[in-house]
């Protein structure tokens, strides 16, 4: 059969349900194979939308997302989603067309060195050189994308090779001698960690996206509640530990709660699970958690001691390691009373500094209230995606995610325009769930074209734009750190989002009154098909609390 028909077979064998993509010259053969390929393909309006949709699909399910693009500009349009997937460890396979082999290296029409351009931001990539390599490359790509620390894998297929006839036989073995992720965790180290936890007077569990990736939320909850360990999660880990919960401190980091950040600051032992000590967490590294010893559990050995030296390093995935840690910890029968003083201290912070905002005295919608209203309108049960900016931080702070894979956002790269296409991917993955996007008025315009895709495919995402008429997060930094001089942050009145929605074949709405907001949101959610809502909120509200960049947790403001 043709190599491209084999690609279809490989994708089906990998359990792929849907591909997001957009055709062009170099992948015309591939698109011909879709005609009778037996796979669902969703035609996006921009490859970046397709890439982020594949990420949203992957984040909502844990399965590998798939995005296709043609050579040259199609492939370069994928760079942002590829990089985003790398930073947030999202399993996505990207398959790009390439010019014919005889044109390679000649600056042929729509030739771009896709392998070269993407090399720094992929987990791995395959440049196909012989057509019979294609099936194996596809399977290896899926294996690499989903195993170990997940990430993006790219397969670049020259057009002539994709058309070639090959003897297709299902691939059952993988030949990756240099790739053997370790997931189990060293038993001796795990025992050492259990002992350290039993000895700790002021422990904190600091959990990240790795817990979500490893499907280890149950193990985390069970371990944390086997004693009264306080738990905080990173932006990527939200939902891995249920909020609210007696042991939940809230998110930590730049816009985390004081309880979480102060607990890290005073802890004597921090147990990091699937988290990577990003600068948005540590602030000033030299003053980060100065009294703490560190247990660091991560499936990627290179993360351990990269930023903060670990005292007990454990290479393994959160699911395996936490299960074993629980057994070891239970066997020690630690004295729970030793944590009483610590909890008194934490309760003090919780009472004194709860997450709070000054609500309006009229009908004005405060952005924080908008998130609370969405929580109420959805019963806290929606999958929520977001863009990047103030609205993202408020969504993270105020939605209270009860389960993992409910919160889908761009953390590491901070990609504006992520939310809408990611919601599209999540909605395709989870047709029975309500999928909402809390978007920024600036960000949403970076991938608004996918509303047309949603309208055409009847993908019923509900996009709530937190419209402050500003690139709000940048405005906030200019206000706080650049003498209040605003430079190019005002987005003003354009576009008219209701009209834009209608032009794309979606339903447009505008909400401006807080007293009816919950009801209005319910109405939007009940409206069939894609809905884009322009929610007018306070224009110059700041996201607090905040650790100014490069400062220590103690220096939190607001």
């Amino acid at each position, binding site marked *: 059969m043709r190599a491209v028909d084999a690609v279809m077979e490989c994708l089906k064998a990998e359990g792929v349900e849907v591909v997001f993509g957009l055709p062009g010259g170099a992948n015309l053969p591939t698109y011909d194979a879709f005609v009778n390929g037996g796979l669902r393909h969703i035609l996006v309006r921009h490859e970046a939308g397709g890439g982020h949709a594949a990420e949203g699909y992957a984040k909502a399910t844990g399965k590998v997302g798939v995005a296709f693009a043609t050579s040259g500009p199609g492939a370069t349009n994928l760079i942002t989603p590829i990089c985003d997937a790398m930073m947030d460890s999202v399993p996505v396979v990207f398959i790009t067309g390439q010019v014919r082999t005889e044109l390679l290296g000649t600056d042929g029409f729509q030739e771009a060195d896709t392998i070269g351009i993407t*090399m*720094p931001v992929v987990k791995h990539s395959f440049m196909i050189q012989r057509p019979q390599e294609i099936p194996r490359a596809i399977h290896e790509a899926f294996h690499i994308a989903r195993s170990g620390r997940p990430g993006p894998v790219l397969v670049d297929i020259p057009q002539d090779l994709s058309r070639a006839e090959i003897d297709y036989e299902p691939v059952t073995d993988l030949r*990756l001698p240099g790739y053997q992720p370790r997931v189990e965790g060293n038993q001796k180290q795990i025992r050492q960690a259990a002992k*350290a936890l039993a*000895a700790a007077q002021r422990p904190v569990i600091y959990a990240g996206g790795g817990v979500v990736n490893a499907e280890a939320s149950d193990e985390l909850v069970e371990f944390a509640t086997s004693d009264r360990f306080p738990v905080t999660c990173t932006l990527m880990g939200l939902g891995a530990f249920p909020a609210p919960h007696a042991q939940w401190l809230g998110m930590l980091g730049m816009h985390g709660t004081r309880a979480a950040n102060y607990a890290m600051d005073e802890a004597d*032992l921090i147990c990091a699970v699937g988290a990577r000590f990003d600068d948005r967490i540590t602030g000033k590294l030299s003053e980060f958690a100065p009294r703490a010893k560190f247990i660091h559990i991560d499936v990627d050995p*290179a993360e351990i*001691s990269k930023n903060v*030296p670990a005292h*007990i390093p454990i290479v393994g995935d959160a699911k395996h390691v936490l299960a074993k840690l629980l057994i070891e910890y239970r066997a020690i029968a630690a004295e729970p009373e030793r944590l009483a003083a610590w909890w008194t201290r934490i309760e003090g912070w919780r009472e004194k500094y709860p997450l709070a905002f000054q609500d309006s005295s009229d009908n004005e919608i405060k952005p924080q209230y908008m998130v609370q209203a969405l929580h109420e309108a959805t019963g806290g049960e929606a999958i929520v995606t977001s863009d990047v900016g103030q609205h993202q931080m408020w969504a993270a702070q105020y939605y209270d995610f009860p389960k993992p894979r409910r919160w889908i956002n761009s953390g590491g790269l901070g990609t504006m325009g992520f939310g809408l296409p990611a919601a599209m991917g999540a909605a395709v993955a989870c047709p029975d769930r309500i999928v909402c996007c809390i978007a920024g008025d600036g960000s949403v315009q970076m991938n608004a074209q996918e509303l047309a895709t949603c309208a055409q495919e009847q993908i019923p995402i509900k996009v709530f734009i937190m419209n402050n008429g500003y690139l709000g997060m940048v405005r906030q930094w200019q206000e706080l750190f650049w003498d209040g001089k605003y430079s190019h942050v005002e987005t003003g009145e354009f576009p008219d989002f209701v009209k834009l929605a209608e032009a794309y074949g979606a339903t447009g709405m505008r909400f401006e009154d807080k007293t009816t907001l919950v009801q209005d949101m319910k109405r939007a959610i009940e409206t069939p098909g894609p809905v884009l809502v322009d929610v007018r909120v306070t224009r110059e509200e700041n996201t607090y609390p905040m650790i100014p960049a490069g400062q220590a947790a103690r220096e939190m403001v607001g």
Partner: protein
Amino acid sequence: MGEPGTKEPLSLEELEASTNMRTGRKHVLSILVENKSGVLTRIAGLFARRGFNIDTLTVGPTDDDQVSRVTLTVDGALHPIDQVTKQLHKLINVLKIRDLEPADTVARELALFKVSADGTQRGELMQIAEIFRGKVVDVTKRAVIVEVTGTTDKIAAFEDMVRPFGLIEMMRTGEIAISRGRSET
């Protein structure tokens, strides 16, 4: 290793951070890689992106034509070697990395020196070459080419010696290294 719960309580004070950040010496990394297109670019790109400097780099075939060997020297005073090797290991085509112990390693580099030397100086230059077990591989009226093999230090010492004659050009291959004893590098 015994049963869970073995009582031997631990004090947090005892815990030491596991990794040293800087070793302060030169490291020779011997890396086996799959012989696939782009492997060297992946390695070089990784070093550039993470801000690690490569001091020398050599690539060559091994007795297995599917596998090549990259020998790379890095300054452990500037870079956390542990982080360098862990990042290298993440490359799918990297099969094996050995951070060679200087005492258990034979390392060699080949260098060619083109030195200006007329009739009067030639004799002295050849004597120096002999002391360094170098070979004169080309002689013209006004220049001599000397081939020297040895450790990086030896080659540097030879360079110091011939510089006063007028060093026209020098070429060095970068080190290759092999572990002593019976076991494979």
